[in-house]
């Protein structure tokens, strides 16, 4: 839950999210009108059996031809209103629901991409289900409100009609509805829980299939295709059993609901039969009651699902609310004015390292990490993906902590080692913020053969860059980093997926570029191209040293 007194953070409470789905952007008014339209529709639906009864009572029984014509005309009028109100309501609901979901999705996504990052960041699977399934369910409250309100209206209408015909019958229907709600809620909860667990296992086959097919090269390499097929069979069987069990839960639930509403119908019919026999109601009224009872059977079955419907939506809203209310990983700035960074060189003081490093324009500096984890940590710090200590990074004389991550990133670009390639053109991947592709940069990143091979800069690279090999993707990521006009480009092991020949050429290419580059790498080939190489001390205690390894002229 959101702590009080933090106006910068969004309200992630369940109520706030439901408000977004139901009230924002004029949705409140629309939902109000739609609910009225749906109520009118349900009212008309309930009127149909009433009118059938009236036709039988007033026209058929007395054999009154004029009454038949009039009452049929009335029935036609009811159908017109019934149809138009439904059409009106469903058109309007698409907009309400669609844009409600859209807004929730944009909010969730904005949080996931927050420059300040999140203190607890959901894994990608969890994030995906938050952004797609949970927003979808929360947005669905608009449907719940509208449909449930109109169903209750229908039941109310029917009860009023029954109350007019006979007080005990009307009261009986209301009591029956409440009873149905209570019983079905009781029954539904354990069934629901079981059904959900089983639906989870039904997805198992898809997971295994995706896993094995995306790893098909590895599988084929070890001649394990038959074993892969056998594993899929096992998973598919688990899924089958899960799906059957889930379907059986649903069958049991609907069977019970059918039974209960049927008993309700029988009780109502018998009671009204007695009332008719005793002359308390007319035959026509009896027919109306029976028609209404049939109609109520359906409405009551819907009432049975209300409880579980809200359980899911609240759970989704809670999950989504946790994301939206999640505090940022990097503390937001104090509101004081921050001086504009000057042209002074960048100064980086790696934690545990004796003296700070000054990076002058045009420098190519190598930093040797202890292990891959250390490399990731250094690049995270320079990319301000983790909280920084004051004094760790100075940009033009201004502390990075005062500038905040987003402004730091305009001056220092430190993309993550496992960078993402997006579907779209090569061009869009190279210069995501727009602009022209620089042949000098693509040449240095050894990307020109890739540009040629896939058919130019405007060729699509496929989902996650699947049209490219691992080495090609890495060179694309390298070229993307070098395309920015930042004061400093930090490269974290940029050539691990390429062969030594290409790596050698990349090293030469980096030397030839005018950019200021900090290379975090253990590769001797890349390090040999650097103007300076800094070996960071042990795990922070060892004396660090900075030296010029080969004294090579640049």
């Amino acid at each position, binding site marked *: 839950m959101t702590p009080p007194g933090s106006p910068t953070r969004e309200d992630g409470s369940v109520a706030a999210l439901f408000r977004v789905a139901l009230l924002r952007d004029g949705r409140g008014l629309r939902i109000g009108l739609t609910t009225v339209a749906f109520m009118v529709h349900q009212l008309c639906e309930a009127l*149909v059996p009433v009118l*059938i009864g009236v*036709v*039988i009572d007033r026209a*058929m029984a007395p*054999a009154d031809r004029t009454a038949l014509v009039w009452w049929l005309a009335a*029935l036609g009028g009811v159908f017109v209103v019934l149809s138009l109100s439904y059409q009106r309501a*469903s*058109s309007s609901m*698409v*907009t309400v629901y669609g*844009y409600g979901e859209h807004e929730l*999705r*944009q909010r969730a996504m*904005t949080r996931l991409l927050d*420059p300040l990052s999140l203190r607890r960041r959901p894994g990608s*699977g969890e994030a995906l289900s938050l952004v797609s399934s949970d927003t979808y369910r929360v947005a669905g409250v608009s449907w719940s409100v509208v449909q449930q309100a109109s169903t209750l209206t229908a039941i109310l209408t029917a009860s009023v009609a029954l109350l007019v015909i006979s007080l005990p019958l009307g009261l009986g229907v209301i009591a029956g509805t409440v009873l149905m709600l209570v019983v079905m809620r009781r029954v539904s909860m354990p069934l629901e829980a079981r059904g959900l667990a089983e639906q989870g296992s039904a997805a198992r086959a*898809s*997971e295994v299939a*995706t896993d094995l097919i*995306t*790893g*098909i*090269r*590895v599988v084929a390499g*070890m*001649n*394990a295709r038959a074993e892969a*097929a*056998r594993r899929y069979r096992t998973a598919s069987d688990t899924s089958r059993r899960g*799906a*059957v069990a889930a379907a059986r839960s649903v069958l049991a639930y609907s*069977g019970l609901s*059918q039974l209960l509403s049927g*008993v309700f*119908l*029988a009780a109502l*019919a018998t009671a009204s039969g007695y009332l*008719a*026999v005793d002359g308390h109601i007319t*035959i026509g009224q009896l027919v109306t009651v*029976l*028609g209404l009872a049939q109609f109520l059977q359906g409405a009551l079955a819907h009432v049975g699902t209300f409880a579980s419907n809200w359980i899911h939506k609240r759970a989704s809203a809670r999950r989504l609310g946790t994301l939206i209310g999640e505090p940022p990983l990097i503390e937001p700035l104090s509101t004081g004015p921050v001086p504009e960074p000057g042209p002074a060189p960048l100064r980086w003081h790696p934690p545990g390292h004796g003296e700070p490093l000054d990076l002058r324009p045009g420098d190519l500096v190598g930093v040797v990490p202890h292990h*891959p984890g250390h490399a990731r940590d250094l690049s995270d710090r320079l990319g301000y993906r983790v909280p920084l200590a004051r004094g760790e990074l100075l940009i033009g004389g201004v502390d990075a902590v005062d500038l905040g991550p987003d402004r730091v*990133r305009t001056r220092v*670009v430190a*993309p*993550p080692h496992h960078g*993402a390639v997006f579907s779209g053109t090569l061009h869009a991947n190279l210069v*995501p*913020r727009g602009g022209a592709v620089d042949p000098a940069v693509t040449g240095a990143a050894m990307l020109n053969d890739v540009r040629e091979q896939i058919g130019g800069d405007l060729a699509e690279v496929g*989902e996650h860059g699947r049209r490219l*090999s691992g080495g090609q993707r890495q060179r694309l990521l390298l070229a993307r980093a070098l395309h920015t006009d930042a004061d400093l480009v930090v490269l974290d*092991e940029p050539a691990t997926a390429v*062969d*030594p020949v290409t790596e*050698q050429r990349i090293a030469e290419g980096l030397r030839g570029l005018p950019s200021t580059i900090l290379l975090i790498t253990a590769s*001797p080939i890349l*390090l040999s191209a650097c103007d300076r190489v800094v070996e960071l001390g042990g795990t922070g205690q060892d004396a660090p040293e900075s030296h010029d390894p*080969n004294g090579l002229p640049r």
Partner: protein
Amino acid sequence: MTSAQTDTPVATLPVADARRTRAEILRRLRAHRRRLGAALLTLLGGTAATLATPPVLGGIVDAVADGAGRGRVPALGIALVAATAVGAVLAYAGGRMLVALVQEVLAGLREDVFETAVHLPVNTLESSGSSDVVSRVTRDVEAVSEAASDVLPEVTNASFTIGLSLVGLAVLDLRLALAGLLCLPVHVYATRQFLRRSHRVYGDIRRLESARGQSVIEAVRGAESIRAYRTQDHHLDDLAERSVRAIERQRDGVGLRNRFTGLLNAAEFLGLAAVLVTGFALFGSGAVTLGAATAAALYFHRLFGPVGALLGSLDDIQRATVGLSRLVGITDLDRHHVRYEEPAQGSGRPNEAQGAGRRPDIDVKGVSYAYDGGRPALREVSLHVPAGTSLALVGASGSGKSTLARLVAGIGTPDRGSVTVGSAEAPDAPASRYLVTQEVHLFGGTLADNLRLARPDAGDDQLRHALREAGAGWALDLDAGLDTVLGAGGSPLDDGSVQHLALARVLLADPPVVVLDEATAESGPQTRALLQGALARVTAGRTSVVVAHRLEQARQADRVLVLRDGEVAEQGTHDELLAAGGEYAALWAAYHRARPGGGAPVSP
């Protein structure tokens, strides 16, 4: 900005036509025709029981009308309860039977699809995009099962209700049934019009929604990159644009459905009015009782729901059929024998005849190869690896190293020339060769699951032994040992560790020929030293081809072959090539110079 259309992979895998799809589904159902018959009969019985309701209600009306009610009403009430109970029980029992059967057929189908897909030649899988295969074995399978579990019972129930209600009407009076049928032409017209246009609109909606989903997936996975380049606005705008497009198209869809619903409502009114008018006339002439006329009207009123459900789900059925035809398209490949024949034992174990002790040699003669008719990746490459020795492949990216390695491993066949493993008279089956690829893939499941892929029958001790042998003893220190769940949701492993497991798998499979195309540069010095040791053990005593991602690997190999633009530039031993002063020597010199301490490998 990408358009939605380009996101759908081009399907080059076949799709079965409607007739073939139908035939295949019928064939699969026929295998269970007894059970299917029993399930359908049970469901039919259930529907029939429920349909006793309107005439019983009519009976109550009649009982009241002829004044003899008192005695009959309670009996009729009990009859109502009985009808409901029998209906509910039979619907439940029949539903259970049907769902078990349908899920069984479906599982059989998807297992066959996967079996065929996984045996397709790797090139086919790659050129048609593994995403096409993945989307068939996941999304299409899911669409079909959803239709089977949600739509099928509903459609079955609706059809039975409609059919039996008409029978019920006809039993009351044939003329009443005929009056009810008056609405049929309107239904036919509405449905045809709807289906003609819904196909395109709903197809668009699905495409737009999947484009939107893809936008979400990419932004979630690439969040760090997006932050680093400050392109949040670009991605959020892209997502917003896609989702607004999807909503707009959904509005078209609702418009279409509204017109359909409007016509259905018209048909309902028409039919109901006809039944009432006919009932009026028949009751007037004394042909039917008031109760029968009531029952007829109630019957007809009861049909509104099922008719709407049936016609409304035609669109879902159409969609499921599309999914089915894509699935049958794949299983049909199997009928046409377009599959990679893995040797009988299938588990990657060499035959006894070619097992340990006999190390075959590798002979490559004049091999040329091009991907999809593009620029040739290999031209006239010949090489020979004597039994039990190792050959390192060196070259720049795009020089054809990996292509050559795959051909040697028996994955794909050369356009020209030959690859022979073992003697020409008795060549070894592809299963004798084992390829460790560049792809780093951690399979789902436990550590043991990851290892047993290479040798399903291996015992726990064998697994532990292989891990220690490969120097991957660290894996046994994981929380739950061999049962540790790895990957997403479990213990994360870095790429170096995953490759380490890949090497342990080679030791488990124990193949006579091993082709290594793995890149271990990802790992730090310590892991690298461990991997180096593992590599040495993996190649020891085996005939091996190693794609050198580091020059150290080349130096340790018996012979080195340098590729340039798909052709052999030079080959010989490490020392020979150094002496020759060619490309390899220059490369080595640069590499050597790069090392501050001299030519020695990096010390951990």
